[in-house]
Each structure stands twice: as C-alpha cells, then as structure tokens.
C-alpha cells in the first residue's frame, strides 16, 4: 500500500511541475504574442483589417523592410565567409598563436553590438570620426574614408559582432571531425586544395548553415546597431521603425497598435528565415564525430604563414582593440572633439557617471537588479521546464518546448510590444513604467537560454541514477534534490551567467519598456549618447564593458571546473 502511495505521489509531482511550467509560459510568452495579433486585427471587439494593410502598405515601412532584408543578407554572407575562413585557418593550418587568437576572436561575441556601433561612429562618422579626420588631414581631401552612417556601415559593424556565430560553430565542427576522413582523401590521391573543396567544406556545411542562420535571424531582429548608426541619416530597419513609431506617438495606444502591426511583418520575415533554416539543416545532417581522437594533419602554410597571421592580427586589431581603445579614450576626454592625447585626458567622466549622475547610477543599479533577478528566476524556471521536457513522459510537453523556445526567434522589440499590451492595464494590472514590466520581459526572453543549458546537462544524467536513489529509499523529491539537481548544478550556474551577461547589456526590449526611474544600462548609454553627451556615454559604456568582461571571466572560471556531468 505504501509503495502504491509513492507511485501516486510521483505522478502528482510531475503533473504539478508540468502545470506550473505551462502557466508561467502562457503568461509570459504566449499571451503577449496573442495580444499582438489581437490588437493588430481587432479594434475593441470588431475585426479591423485596415490597420494592418495601412501599416504594411506605408512606403516608409516597406523601405524599412527592404533595408532589414538587405542588411541581414549582406551581414549573413560576409559574416559567414569571414567566420569560415578564420575557423579553417585556426582549425586546420599551422598558423602561430592559435590559442591567443581563439580567445580574441570570441571577444566580439560578448561585446555589446550597440557599444561597438557607438565606437565605430566615433571612428568613422563622416565628418567628426577620428579615422576620417586623420584621413582627410593626411590626404588633403574633404571626402571621408568611409561613412559609417550608411547601410554598408551598418553591415560592417554587424559583421564584426556576428561572425563569431559561424566561427565558433565551424571551429568546433572541425575539432570534432574525424581527421581520417581527410586523410583517406589524401591517400586516395587528392591534394590539399581538393580535400578542402570536396571533403572538408561539404562536411562542415551543416555547421556553417547553423551559424549562418543564427546570424541571419539575429541581424533581422537586431536593434542596436541600426539605431546607433542609422537614425541620424533616416535609415530605418523594421526593429528601429517599430521603436520610432511608438516613440513618436509618445506611447499612445494608436502608436502601439501600429508597432504591433509592423511587428507582425517582422515576425513573418523571421519565420520565413527559420523555415529556410529548417530546410537547410535537414538536408545535410551526418555524423562526422567518429573514431579515436588524433591530431589532424595541419596544412603547412609555408610562405603565406606570416602574411596570413598579419591579416588575422590586423582584423583582430580592427574588430577588438580599436573599438575598445576608442571607447575608453573618448570616455576619458575632457570634451568631445579634442584630439586624443594625454593632455586632454581626465577621469572626470568616469567619476561623474559612477558617483554624481543620478541617471547613470540608477541605470547601473537597475541593470544589476534586473540581470541578477531575471537570471535567477529564469534559471529555475528553465531548469524546471528542461526537467519536464527531458525526463518526464507527460502529454503536452512538446507544447511546453515550443513555448519556451519561441522567444529565441521572436525579436526582442516584438516581445516588448506584447508585454506592453499585456501588462498595461488590460488584465487589471498596470506595470507600465515600472521596473517589473522589464523583469517580466527579461524572464520571457531568457528562459530559453537556461532551458538549453540545463537540458544539455540533464540529458547526460541517466535515469538509473535517480532510480538508484529511489531504490535506496529516497522519495521522488529527495532524489531530485540530492541526485539530479546536484549533478546538473554546473549547467545551472552556467545558465545563470548565460542570462546575466546579455541581460546586463540589454537594450532592445528595455528601450520600449523603461520608465523615468527604470532605465537600464543600455538605455542610459543610448540616451546620454542621443543627448549628445558623447564622452559620458563612452565612459558609461566602458564601465559596462568592464562589468561584462568580469562576468565572462567568472563564467569561464565556473565552467572550467566541472566535476559532475559536463
């Protein structure tokens, strides 16, 4: 009888978990999406198609859509080529300084793209950019070297920060790939170039495609770079256009409805991209991870070794060092526009943003609060969902998975509109202009990160481990707590940082949700910059970068030492 009672208890626990997860996801993810669709097509309770058609037919919106697609296309193409090239160079050739370069190439990955855009604006804006000024002085011309406030400029900056998606995927595919696949081609009579073309590249196509699709989707829904570089020249993409629509109407319901309608357009574009991704990834899926690990035979670059190393170091300098330098240097300037020399340097800006600017201090505090609390909450919710999806056989868990992964592909700006529609009084609760509405949006946005991290760990915890605990007399809850949770703790901690870091630098969602006292770090940097207070915004950016770098160090430190399942 007792045993029977326990069985019942187990079923109950799983079902309760399932229900909790589903409720959370419906409130945070599903409802906001439904609200967007509802508000676009219904006015009050009557069907109203005109709003959608008006918004979609508006020529400036069509322009924005076209810009979005053009930018995303070029960012994907160039970013993929750059990523594959460097991955191959590091994964398969005898180029020196590999370890160092592998670390440095990942830095752009954690660099907030909108701060990068700001840095490039400081360097290459047509008249006041430092590089352009230098160029005009040296060449005696009035033509700038490059105008960063253009479609090409936006593409350039996005490529700098998105190519690591492809780079990381391909490097890891090359590392896992069985070297004998290439060696057997060599022994069959193929030379190195032939092997690269016919064996290596086709085999990493799935990894390339996965990375390229990540770039495509990220670029389609990206806000920061086009906002920083495009606004002043009237270059809009769908996410920045949505922001502009709502901003211009000062948060009126009409403006939000227009934004919602445009969001649907953006979501359609992203969904088409996702559908493409599915098709491509399905076409080529094979197992290249076989055999004993042996060092692959590295291609001897001979005479091109040092020129190629030069290219690598130069691009690292351009992508990583130059923007970092300009941010910290401008942050230390007495006044924007002064030459960058030691005599003009001061710590006043850093002092000001840290100790006397109320807005900057609030922003740092708010971002820490939001990043930590959303990371903790999302980590637990994500782990719970991962547990149900991976370990429990309950009906409807695929719905759970879809809901949890949805925010992955829903652009942040769209999610923000959904959250506004949902939490500004529609359901008797008005959180608009408070920090709580941002927290809810962050949780919805980042639960997927935690879920992925935890389910990767959970998949490696064999059923028998929990069953062994139960056979020793532990209850279901005890075995969960003492065995499963204990084993996946490293995965959960990694999940915490995977949320904390992007939340710390978040801009897209919070820029639509912030109120007078709930600015985040990203919003404050953006706002101070838009006010024209360039040096202070650079100083605050520098502080943000330091915080993020420290967080990354901490993440490395935690993930390095993994005694449980890795």
């Amino acid at each position: 009888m007792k045993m029977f009672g326990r069985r019942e208890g187990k079923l109950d626990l799983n079902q309760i978990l399932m229900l909790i997860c589903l409720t959370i996801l419906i409130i945070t993810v599903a409802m906001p999406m439904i609200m967007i669709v509802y508000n676009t097509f219904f006015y009050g309770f009557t069907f109203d198609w005109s709003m959608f058609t008006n918004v979609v037919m508006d020529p400036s919106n069509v322009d924005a859509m076209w810009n979005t697609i053009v930018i995303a296309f070029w960012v994907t193409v160039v970013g993929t080529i750059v990523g594959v090239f460097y991955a191959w160079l590091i994964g398969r050739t005898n180029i020196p300084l590999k370890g160092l370069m592998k670390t440095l190439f990942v830095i752009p990955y954690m660099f907030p793209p909108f701060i990068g855009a700001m840095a490039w604006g400081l360097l290459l804006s047509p008249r006041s950019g430092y590089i352009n000024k230098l160029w005009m002085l040296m060449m005696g011309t009035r033509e700038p070297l490059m105008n960063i406030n253009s479609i090409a400029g936006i593409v350039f900056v996005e490529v700098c920060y998105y190519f690591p998606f492809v780079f990381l995927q391909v490097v890891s595919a090359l590392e896992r790939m069985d070297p004998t696949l290439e060696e057997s081609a060599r022994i069959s009579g193929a030379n190195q170039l032939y092997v690269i073309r016919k064996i290596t590249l086709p085999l990493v196509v799935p990894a390339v495609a996965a990375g390229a699709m990540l770039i495509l989707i990220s670029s389609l829904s990206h806000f920061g770079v086009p906002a920083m570089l495009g606004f002043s020249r009237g270059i809009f993409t769908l996410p920045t256009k949505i922001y502009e629509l709502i901003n211009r109407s000062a948060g009126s319901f009409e403006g939000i409805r227009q934004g919602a309608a445009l969001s649907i357009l953006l979501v359609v574009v992203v969904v088409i991209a996702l559908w493409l991704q599915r098709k491509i990834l399905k076409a080529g899926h094979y197992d290249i991870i076989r055999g004993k690990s042996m060092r692959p035979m590295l291609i001897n670059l001979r005479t091109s070794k040092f020129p190629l190393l030069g290219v690598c170091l130069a691009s690292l300098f351009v992508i990583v060092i130059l923007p970092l330098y300009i941010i910290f240097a401008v942050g230390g300037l007495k006044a924007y526009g002064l030459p960058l020399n030691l005599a003009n340097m001061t710590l006043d800006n850093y002092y000001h943003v840290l100790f006397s600017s109320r807005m900057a201090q609030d922003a740092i505090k708010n971002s820490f609060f939001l990043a930590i609390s959303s990371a903790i909450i999302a980590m637990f919710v994500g782990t719970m969902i991962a547990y149900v999806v991976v370990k429990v056989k309950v009906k409807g868990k695929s719905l759970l998975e879809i809901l949890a992964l949805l925010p992955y592909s829903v652009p942040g700006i769209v999610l923000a509109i959904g959250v506004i529609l949902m939490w500004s009084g529609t359901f008797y609760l008005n959180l608009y202009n408070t920090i709580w509405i941002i927290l809810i949006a962050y949780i919805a946005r980042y639960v997927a990160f935690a879920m992925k991290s935890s389910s990767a760990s959970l998949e490696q915890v064999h059923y028998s481990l929990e069953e062994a605990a139960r056979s020793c007399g532990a209850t279901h809850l005890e075995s969960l707590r003492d065995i499963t949770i204990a084993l996946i703790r490293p995965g959960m901690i990694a999940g915490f940082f995977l949320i904390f870091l992007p939340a710390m630098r978040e801009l897209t969602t919070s820029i639509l949700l912030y109120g007078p006292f709930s600015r985040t770090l990203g919003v404050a940097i953006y706002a101070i910059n838009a006010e024209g207070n360039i040096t202070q915004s650079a100083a605050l950016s520098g502080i943000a970068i330091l915080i993020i770098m420290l967080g990354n160090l901490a993440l490395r430190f935690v993930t390095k030492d993994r005694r449980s399942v890795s």
Partner: protein
Amino acid sequence: MSEVILKNVTKKFSTRTLGEVTAVDDFNLTIREGECFSLLGPSGCGKTTTLRMIAGFEDLSDGEIWIGDKPVSAKKRNLYVQPEDRGLGMVFQAFAVWPHLNVFENVAFPLRVRNVGRREMDSRVAEALKHTGLGGLDRTFPSDLSGGQLQRIALARAIVMNPKVLLLDEPLSNLDPKLRESMRFEIKELQRRFNFTIIYVTHDQAEAMALSDRMLVMDMGVIQQIDTPTNMYNNPANKFVYGFLGLSNFVDVNIGDGKVYPEGGSGQPFPCAIPGDFTEAAGTVASRPNEIDLTAEGGYRTVVKARIFLGDYTEYRVDVGNQEVRIQSTGDRGFMVGDSVGLDFTRVQWYSRDDGISDAERERRKVI
C-alpha cells in the same frame, strides 16, 4: 618492385608532460613484395605512428623510407613525398567513409581525383564493389549501412586504384567478433587475387597470426622481434613477446647445485631442465596454461586453489612457490579445490629475470 624499406627510421615527439619521447626508435626493416606484414604491439607502442610515416601523414625525425625503388621520405635529403603522391591504398580504423557521398562516389573518389574517364570509372568501381561484396549498393548513403559494410566501402576505395601497397590501420577493431573473423578471410582472399603488399597494424595477436606472412612485435618504439607467426609463437625472443602472444605463466626461479627452485618455495625442486646456454643464477620460466598437465601423482606437488569449468576446458589456479600459475586442461580430470595435484610442464622457455621493460614506464607513456 613494391618493397617497403625503412632505414634508421626514428620519430620523436615533444610532449608537454613527458618532454621528448621517442615513439619509433631506429627501425630497420624490409617488407617484401606481395607479403602480408603485421605491426603488432600494445596501444601507444608506436605501430600506428610507423604506419602513418609510411603513408606520409607524419614526417620522420631521422632515417629514410623507400617504396619500391623510390625514396618517399628521407630526412637528411629533406625529401618528403605528399601522401597523395605515394600511390598507396589505406583503410582506417574508424572507416573514414565520407558521409556526404554515396557508396559509388566514395569508391570512385580516387579515380575522380585522377580524372579517369566515365566509362572506365564505372567498370572499375563495379569491380571493386563486386570483390568486396557490395554489388547493388552503389546509390546507398553510408548512414544507411552497417559497420561491416562501411569497412567494405573503405576496402573497395583502397583497392580501386589497384595499389601496389595496402596499409591497414586496425581495420577490424570496430567490428563485432564474428564479422572480424570473416573479414580476415576476405582481406586474405583479396590479397591472393591482386597480390599487393599489405602492411597491417593491430593490437590483436590472433588477428596478426592469422593474417601475416611475417610479423613484427614492438614495444615502446623498439622492435622486439620480427619473424613468421609460427616461429615467433614457438620461440619468443623475450618475456614481453612471450606475454604478448598468448596467455602466459611466468615463474621466477633460482638455480642451486644444478637444480631449479621456484621463488618463495619450500625447497621442492622445479621439474625442468636448465638449458645449456643459460648461465645465470636466477631466471624466469615461462609456460602457457595449456602446456601444463595435471597429474594425481608425481610432478611438482601443489594444491588446487580454484577450479573454473568453462566447457571447452577447465581452468585451475595453483601456487608454485609464492607465485600463482594458471592451467587450462582439456578433458576434465575432476580435481577439486583442495586436492593435491602434480604439475607436469610439457614445454617451457627460459628468460632472464629483468629483461622485460618496466610496466610502469609503459603506463607512464600511455598518455601520449
């Protein structure tokens, strides 16, 4: 001419933990035309490194390798022929069948690289597939095939160019035991038909003995013995080779006034003659478990410690002095645990006590 000749071949690796390690130490070796030659040894002994140097995937630290009458690697002359220009066929342990190409395309790859015409390609691939029992699977993709079939693709791909020398790197160790046995026959059959020289790397002594005309046993980068399988099994050059080729008992003994006493024994002499050329005062007597008879009376007296019935034979454990000896006897004599029995050694080999290389050193090097 398709001899493979290694002259003073040496390979050194520098490792972070162990410093410089000699993986292959001064190999001198001639593998004859049409011969099936095995490189046999425990993992980490340098056999795969040797094969990869012949294939051209590793450069030498010193020495020369010749294939036929041409040098392909010669360190002193700075000569190094790329793997694709050595005209070899090779089969890898993990099959290395390309997952993005179908069976036909995999096997046709060496022909395609050399721009062989369509018609000739079709007929040569068809023939290679026929000889490896893959007929009719041309358009199938590797993901739909079993391990045995993948290994056949790898074989077909290696023989499609009709190479003079075929390199096999533990080709059967990823297959199940039954399949392994039948593939051995097929490889032997292919060799009989096409008459190529085979260099075969394995850690499985039964496989090496079944396939090879001659074989080489190596340990920690040093050649221990080169001989035919029969000669080597009957006369292992040292304790390591003896131990590697089959189950073995090593009994440490001391010699006093013309008699042999097991170490730790109570003075009962060991019933075997001292070979004429053995002059040391202590040695090791090696025997195989199936070369010892158990008798009710006479022999070296001891007591049965354990008895395991295994169907084809019965295994007994007894002590000789303070050392345990295993005996496998066919025809169950019905001795039970605790029974007093006599040991009759039908064949033994004598070795010096300390001729084995230290196991600790081997363990230490395994990390490479």
